[in-house]
């Protein structure tokens, strides 16, 4: 929990570096801009919300604040996580509201040169295109950067 916060300041000082918290969802590595991240949580008790969009896993209590839990697998059209696999989540702040993004595993904090950031391939699944701003090519794997704003915009997208 304290880890992302300490490295955050390092990210600010080097202007050409961008800092991400990485997370694992169904064997895919994703990155979330560190400035949006508030917390990384272990498995939590989540209270379900009847009638909520399917992407909404429920709500949880984070030190007296109500956090809406978003199931990243659902949001990204991935298969549901096995029941025996405890999930983790990153808590992000979006317009003053807290959301917890349910993932399989928290990764590390990565500082990456801004110059290496590249657009996603045009053949990417449209659902993913919608929530991604671009990717980084890392050693042996690809890091997909999630755009929080669009990731949390599904309510309106559906209504429109």
């Amino acid at each position: 929990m304290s880890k992302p916060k300490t490295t955050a300041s390092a990210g600010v000082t080097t202007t050409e570096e961008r800092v991400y918290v990485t997370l694992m969802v169904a064997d895919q590595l994703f990155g979330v801009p560190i400035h949006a991240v508030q917390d990384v949580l272990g498995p939590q008790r989540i209270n379900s919300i009847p009638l909520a969009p399917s992407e909404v896993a429920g709500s949880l209590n984070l030190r007296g604040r109500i956090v809406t839990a978003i199931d990243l697998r659902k949001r990204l059209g991935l298969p549901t996580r096995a029941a025996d696999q405890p999930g983790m989540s990153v808590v992000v702040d979006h317009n003053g509201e807290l959301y917890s993004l349910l993932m399989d595993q928290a990764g590390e904090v990565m500082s990456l040169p801004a110059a290496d950031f590249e657009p996603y391939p045009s053949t990417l699944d449209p659902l993913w295109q919608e929530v991604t701003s671009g990717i980084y090519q890392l050693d042996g794997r690809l890091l997909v950067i999630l755009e929080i704003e669009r990731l949390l915009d599904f309510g309106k997208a559906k209504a429109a």
Partner: protein
Amino acid sequence: MDDLLREFLTESAESLAVLDLELVRLEKNPNDQELLSNIFRLVHTVKGTCGFLGLPRLEAVAHAGENVLGRIREGKLSVDAQAITLILTSIDCIKSILAEIERTEAEPEGNDADLIARLNAFAESADAPATVAPTPAEPVVAKVEAAPAAPAHVETAAPSAAKPGAKPAEGGPATAEATQTIRVNVGLLENLMNLVSEMVLTRNQLLQIVRGRNDTELTVPLQRLSHTTTELQEGVMKTRMQPIGNAWNQLPRIVRDLARDLGKEITLEMHGAETELDRQVLELIKDPLTHMVRNSGDHGLEKPEDRRAAGKPDTGKIVLEAFHEGGHIIVKISDDGRGLALKRIKDKALQQGLVTETDLAQMSENQIQQLIFRAGFSTAEKVTNVSGRGVGMDVVRTNIEKIGGTIEMKSVEGKGTTFTIKIPLTLAIVSALIVECANERFAVPQINVVELVRAGGKSDHAIEKINGTPVLRLREALLPLVSLRRLLKLDATDIAEPDEAFVIVTAVGSQHFGIIVDRVFDTEEIVVKPVAPILRDISLYSGNTILGDGSVVMILDPNGIASTSGAGEISDDRTTEEAHAAARGEDRSAILLFRAGGNTPKAVPLSLVARLEEIDVAAIERSNGMPVVQYRGQLMPLVTVNDNAAIKDTGRQPVVVFTDDSRSMGLIVDEITDIVEDTFALELASGQPGVVGSAVIAGKATEVIDVAYYMGIIHADWTHAATGDEHKRVLLVDDSPFFRNLLKPLLAVAGYEVTAVESAEEALRLRDRGESFDVIVSDITMPGIDGCALASEIRSGGAWQATPLVALAANASDIQRGQAAGFNDLAAKFDREAIVSKVSQTLLNLQGAA
């Protein structure tokens, strides 16, 4: 001490403290224009408030000080030590006077001519820049607070001495008032609130652990901790709540000024100032409220001569009201002014291109009135300095909607306008009932809960189903039920419905309905938190909250449940406006739908139905050629809707039971199809016996059954038997949609053809259109033309001169007034039977007389 005065003292103490610092800074940076402007503004504010509070001595000093600052600002005087000293001295003088005011609540005797003269002389020296003769005086006596009556002394010491010399009064009594209240950032309070919530949770966990261990050593301190935590929680919650009166404090003054400026006489009445609401919400509605009160005073109320001409007292009245209702805070602003002229609104709306003629033709009066909330709308014929400056009602509406509130307006031309603002309890604390359904817990605001009924199992009540629609018989009435499990689509879960369930009897407006849940826990004080934006479209929730055990639960919104479930399948297509109308319970009533003798759906108001039964066909006997059944120790006759309908040969026969006093009747039906909430507007009168007419209910053309007709067939002595083929026409005039809804079907089933209108004006329009009625039933108390005035108007001449009039009287004084005005008869408004019998009697008398 007067609140206003206290606020002034607190504010002034703050301003003066800032002034001290700023003046010193100005001395160091004489060319800092921004600093100078700020100082000027602060002194100006102090001066302004003094004048308003009637503190002439204070005002005179502040005024002189302001003069000097004005010269400096104009560049006619330069900022030097002498100037600063002089100003600081005046500020010290103000402080000492303030200290005295705080002590005695009155301005001390005395005069500051000496100081003022110096200040003025200094200010004038700018115009005659020859000499700025430093007036010699005794040195430094800034600590004047000890002798407030003594004239303040002015120091003309060297610059170096000026600063320290001016300071001593700072810590003096003037700041004592400031220490009574402190201003705290709302963010800090919010943070405290979260910390306390977390603390409560931890406390609860600890209690749980200790309970398991039976460790007596821990019990006592833990109890103390628990107690303290609860108090702390309450305390912190309270910090956020403020009485709405705080937002109203300034209004009397504004209204007074307004009255003076516009040459009107206005009184302002305020009720419910103690109603508490969240501080943040309070701040946000302050400006809209002020604006609306100004509007009422400016546009709403007439000048005394116009009021006299309209037969009203010279003094106009603005009434502010606040109260809690259905989990909301309602604020009403009403005036007895000229009301909104529909024609002017129409003209204006057309002129500004907000609507077309066609639109207008289709709009109801109410809808037209709501146009004033549209952007860019202002009917003020001239722009006054008070209102009509483009900050219209649309801004007010936007501001109120921003905090999740709604605003409505009702206006009667010539009588006045009422605005109703409904603010949700966002962030407020409410008492809620915690319930469980399919292992999920929910909170229901206690304010909506009428009672709890245990049903099924060994209890006295059972939930019965009519074609899958659950109902509950509660004290001889049928209560429509909503299954929370179904509503929230929780049926998919494998948790079986328990044998025993609970029904939460809920009131939304005038409607009652029951919500079926599995279990009921305790009531808890909950902090309502708004739901995440993603979930805001779900109308069933009004918020969410964290319970004592740390879990997050959704708060159910009975209004949303009523509107979602009431309309059944068509709920999705409903516009928000309609949903709101449903939530307010306007023009909607519960209707029982069934099939009998043919495929056309048939309906009857649920309020007339006593019970729904299924009787064993074998139990049906015949008496006097009529099918009867033994029912509750009596013989109950059974009737079929028409000749096509027949009693089943075997099995159980569904029957709708109607009762009137001791008589009852069973109507044979093929199938009960549904209970819906819908408007009950007869669209086609019918010549067919036994059918009142047709109405569109739940989207289908439906025949509305004339219960009185069948009662008449069976019980020849049925008092208000209708002739069946010839319907008497009744005009019902009542401003309350509730009563119109109640009486219209009542009179309709008694065999009358009812036309209901909501105002006397509308009734008179019908007269002018040449409509005729056999009897007119009118409420006495109505906005606009009231019942008595309507009666006088009708009796004074015209087509209806001889039409019998029956008044609905709500109290004794109405009776006298009513008779004087020309009503033939009066019925107590709340006695349904009396109303029907009075109507039939009046008609009978008339026939007898003819």
